[in-house]
């Protein structure tokens, strides 16, 4: 079981922002999809620090990222 960030795609696509991507401490983990204009998470690399949740929910009040539990192989 891992605790990782998960982007709600439909909510995220409303905003053309990538602030969470710019504040993730892990390289190549929280990525930005050029054509869909959404952020997406590489689950196997996410360490679950939730800084992206702070940026999205507390700073920007957009609530597009939540922390979820995944099992190996998801």
């Amino acid at each position, binding site marked *: 079981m891992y605790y990782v960030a998960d982007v709600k795609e439909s909510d995220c696509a409303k905003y053309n922002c990538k602030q969470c991507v*710019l504040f993730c401490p892990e390289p190549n983990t929280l990525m*930005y999809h050029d054509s869909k204009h959404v952020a997406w998470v590489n689950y196997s690399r996410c360490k*679950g620090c939730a800084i992206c949740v702070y940026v999205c929910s507390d700073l920007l009040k957009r609530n597009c990222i939540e922390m979820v539990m995944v099992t190996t192989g998801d």
Partner: protein
Amino acid sequence: MGLEYVRISPGFEKYMPKDYVDLVQYGQFGKEIDVQQLGQFKELVEEHPMCAGCFMAYFVRVFYASLPKPEDTIVIGTAGCARLALSQAAVPFIYGNYGDTNAVASGLKRALSIRFPDKEKDVVVIAGDGGLIDIGFGMTMHSWFRREKFTTIMVDNEVYGNTGGQESGMSPRGVQLKMAPKGKQFDKINAVELAKVAGCVYVAKLAPTNPKRIAKTVRRAILAARHFGPTFIHAYTSCNIEYSIPTEKVLEDARKREKQDFGFYEWMTDEVKEFFEELERKPEEVKA
């Protein structure tokens, strides 16, 4: 060193690791990358064993994304947290003994300028508060006195994070740590003023709350070091383990400290200021 060493020989693409092929195709080598493009290209730094939510890891990530010429850069680090991420990047990394990073960098920069007199090779030291201002103090200061042309970046987590939480010269006064139960009795060392007095031509102090500003500062420090002399950046990179900051509050803490004592500060000599005015004016003139 140089783009020809980065590229894969024709016919060998399918034998190279996927990450390396991605790095050459979608990475920073030979391109002008803006830090705002993070998340849309393959970054130089790879997965590393630093703690979840570590802001030193974040600083290292933004640092690599803002290198002006990653293929012509050598990074020097030492014992401490930062080297865990620095050594996982596609930029040559040298592990100096504890305290002698700036002495190693001095020799390296001189050797590079003899070996490649017509090319610009950047040398960057990234070490912690212990490596640069406590144990490496003498060598750091003397490299500045000698006006060696390289960049020194101090990632200041205000504690010896690897060895259980001893106080360092950069810990704030009165702070209680696991191995300093009485609280620190002395003030935090003013590294920025020391650097100015010791002869640095560009000095900056920042908390990593704005990636664009980090990138601009790092680029300026590297470019000034190429032409003028030693440059120094003092970055606040909190230790969320030793200072017991919940990981999701790390950015909040950095923003708080930025308001208190880590407000953005930049100082440079007049000739460096003139150089940047010239450099940053050029694109507008070309358009006109």
